[in-house]
């Protein structure tokens, strides 16, 4: 078993300057790391995901460099955008000119008020090695704060760019902290994008206070050589509503680990995921939905389209604590296998300690339905067009739920390109 230092996961970053207010949580994470190792496939949580290639790559901390983000610009978020390159704040690309008054959107390093909330969800004692590595060594990130009863009109866009410079693979530790006060509402896009062989190990913490509502798109479009680890920790207070959608298109190796705590009564969670995989990509989603109080509702839909020699892993855990009566939890894992060598490992888990609940989960792995293909062919579409249309259709319902029009369009195009369905653009 390899220790962290053997894997060269960035001891250099320890000496980088940071605000003094981060020290307690940073130190605690550093201490927690001492007892932690990079997991192997012998760990139940990493059974299907071998970190061998990560272990064999030597990464150096990524430096700031100028990047062109033109194609990533969302018209809905022209004046409400923060950009980070290799973990460093990028002032020329960022633009917060249209930020409504009272709403805070800035880099963490200059948000002194954020320190207390940092690591309050991704606690060092309750986190895995990747999350703790981020907490211990991250240098900057984004902070978003919406005050009481403010409905934020524009979409907020946080873009993390990973860009390899030179021959050496680079690494970054992006961090995002989102706090919605009572009754606030927000549409947020968190996007990861990059070039070259990079390692992105991000941690996002989300606090949705009483009656607040957050719609959170999480887009992963890293380069085909990249490694991407993303930990999402969220807490929902009373009557809070949280919609989180993760779309994974890039990275050779990615792992999404959302951990959502429904901390009070009457909360509502939607946790959707789509992974589009080809060649030798691996996408792993390990989610944990924790129902702790009565009258919580959760809906999870996870889809994977797997082509080439790719592998999709899903492990969705729903936990209903004692006393969380009237919980209504539903989970679906749907997987489409397109090639002989593609592979899917899925494991939806229910652990229920309350009797008056409605919980259901389902998992399905299959291929395109021959009857549906036949139907389309009988209408004059050739076989490959029919296949592409159905494959696109499999993903389309999740994409259709994205409220940000420009992003929805972008992703539809990306999915069409990947499913060879460009010629269908006119139909979509």
């Amino acid at each position, binding site marked *: 078993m390899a220790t962290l230092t053997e894997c060269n996961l960035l001891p250099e970053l320890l000496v980088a300057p940071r605000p003094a207010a981060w020290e307690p949580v940073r130190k605690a994470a550093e201490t927690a790391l001492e007892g932690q190792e990079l997991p192997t496939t012998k760990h139940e949580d990493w059974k299907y995901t071998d970190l061998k290639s990560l272990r064999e790559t030597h990464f150096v901390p990524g430096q700031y460099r100028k990047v062109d983000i033109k194609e990533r610009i969302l018209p809905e978020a022209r004046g409400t955008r923060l950009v980070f390159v290799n973990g460093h704040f990028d002032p020329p690309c960022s633009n917060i000119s249209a930020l409504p008054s009272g709403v805070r959107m800035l880099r963490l390093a200059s948000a002194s008020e954020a320190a207390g909330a940092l690591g309050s969800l991704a606690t060092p004692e309750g986190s895995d090695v990747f999350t703790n590595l981020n907490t211990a060594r991250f240098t900057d990130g984004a902070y978003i704060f919406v005050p009481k009863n403010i409905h934020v009109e524009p979409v907020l866009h946080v873009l993390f760019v990973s860009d390899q410079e030179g021959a050496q693979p680079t690494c970054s530790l992006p961090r995002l902290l989102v706090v919605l006060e009572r009754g606030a509402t927000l549409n947020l896009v968190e996007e990861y994008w990059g070039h070259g062989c990079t390692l992105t190990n991000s941690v996002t913490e989300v606090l949705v206070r009483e009656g607040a509502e957050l719609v959170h798109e999480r887009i992963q479009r890293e380069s085909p050589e990249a490694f991407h680890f993303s930990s999402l920790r969220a807490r929902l207070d009373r009557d809070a509503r949280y919609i989180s959608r993760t779309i994974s298109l890039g990275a050779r190796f990615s792992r999404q680990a959302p951990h959502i705590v429904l901390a009070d009564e009457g909360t509502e969670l939607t946790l959707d995921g789509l992974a589009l995989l080809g060649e030798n990509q691996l996408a792993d989603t390990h989610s944990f939905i924790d129902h702790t109080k009565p009258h919580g509702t959760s809906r999870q839909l996870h889809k994977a389209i797997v082509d080439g020699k790719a592998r999709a892993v899903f492990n969705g855990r729903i936990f209903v604590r004692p006393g969380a009566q009237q919980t209504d939890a539903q989970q679906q894992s749907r997987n489409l296998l397109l090639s002989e060598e593609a592979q899917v*490992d899925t494991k939806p888990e229910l652990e229920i300690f309350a009797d008056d609940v409605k919980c259901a*989960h389902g998992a399905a792995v299959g291929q395109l339905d021959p009857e549906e293909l036949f139907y389309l062919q009988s209408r004059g579409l050739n076989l490959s067009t029919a296949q592409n249309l159905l494959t696109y259709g499999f993903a389309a319902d999740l994409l259709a739920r994205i409220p940000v029009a420009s992003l929805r369009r972008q992703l539809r195009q990306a999915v069409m390109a990947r499913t060879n369905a460009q010629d269908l653009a006119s139909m979509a």
Partner: protein
Amino acid sequence: MNSSLQQVTSQEYKYGFVTDIESDSAPPGLSEDTIRFISAKKGEPDWLLAFRLKAYRHWLTMKEPAWANVHYEKPDFQKIVYYSAPKQKTPKYQSMAEVDPELIRTFEKLGVPLNEQKALAGVAVDVVFDSVSVTTTYKEKLSEVGIIFGSFSDAVREHPELVKKYLGSVVPFSDNFYAALNSAVFTDGSFCFIPKGVTCPMDLSTYFRINNKESGQFERTLIVAEEGASVNYLEGCTAPQFDTNQLHAAVVELVALDDASIKYSTVQNWYAGDKNGVGGIFNFVTKRGLCKGRNSKISWTQVETGSAITWKYPGCLLVGENSIGEFYSVALTNHQQQADTGTKMIHIGKNTKSTIISKGISAGNSSNSYRGLVKVMPKAEGARNFSQCDSMLIGAKCSANTFPYIEVQNKSAKVEHEATTSKIGEEQLFYFQQRGIPAEDAISMIINGFCKDVFRELPMEFAVEATKLLSLKLEGSVG
């Protein structure tokens, strides 16, 4: 907890009585000497002793598994008595009159139709009483059609070539911790061989019963169905009440060749410990069927209501083309019981199919987990699986968990899994009651409806027993 639930809680184990028979036991403890003692005692051939020793040496290198969702005090393997046989008054019984009358009374209490007249009830019973097969009925009638059905020891003596060929072929001694232990120290069990083209004329059945205090029971069952053969096998269990935990680590191996079918049904009602979780059986069982031939079929049906800890995953290796694996299960836990049970369906051959229907009912402080694996290997073209796992919770202190593992490596495979969790609806109960049906009966009917998909897979007499068992165990749990 309401009063009627408490009523159920205080219900004593119905089959808890101990028969006083002198045992011919090995001293407690496990070593190569113990194994040699067992082997010598049973007059086994050298190859079997070698098999045991190999398994024992491998077992020494293994760790007790900890991944299951159960919590218990690990058994002390040096305190277990690995061999105990009822003392025989003559070398071999010639007739029923010679059998220890104490023993016969036990069987009568258990309702085993031992003598000829009772056997006319239609079931041939190979009675395993504390590890040694005492008598076998209907053996002759079965041997007329070429079926070999008897104790494992007899099979080793009379058909060593068959035992040697199939022993460990489905569950190798290195399979897991408890299978290795069993392979080293198994004392007896059942052996069944259905030759080519024969449909077994009656349901075969075994009663297992753990009777000697401190004696772990390590049964070994091997069933082979040759080309075109078919058999129904029933296994029923009850055990007397004890305060120390008893370990039961059985191994069951089934082999089905071309066009053969084996149906294996179990009703398990071992002592589950008292309401505080003291005592009870540890049931760590490895059951696996090999669908070796084309169009072969293996079907597992189980009703698990007993044991303090259950750790059991009857599975099928679907190797033959078009072979079928089935798993139907009702697992009921109450008080402090813990069950981690499910199945493994490994699709290896083309067009293999599997069905999994699992119903879990938890009450009291119990924990009930379904853990299943559906694996489709790259060459399993056209594999198909359907799984349904439903859980029902009765009371706010129990838990129900579902851990289905799905691993698919072939794109033409179609795998579906569904699971739901619910409780008995107040509206359902109200409907029954306003029609004049008391709550007790209503619950019994709802539970039976919930388990119907499994019960109808059971042979008639088992279905009746299972229905009664569930009603008994859950009487008045909701109201």
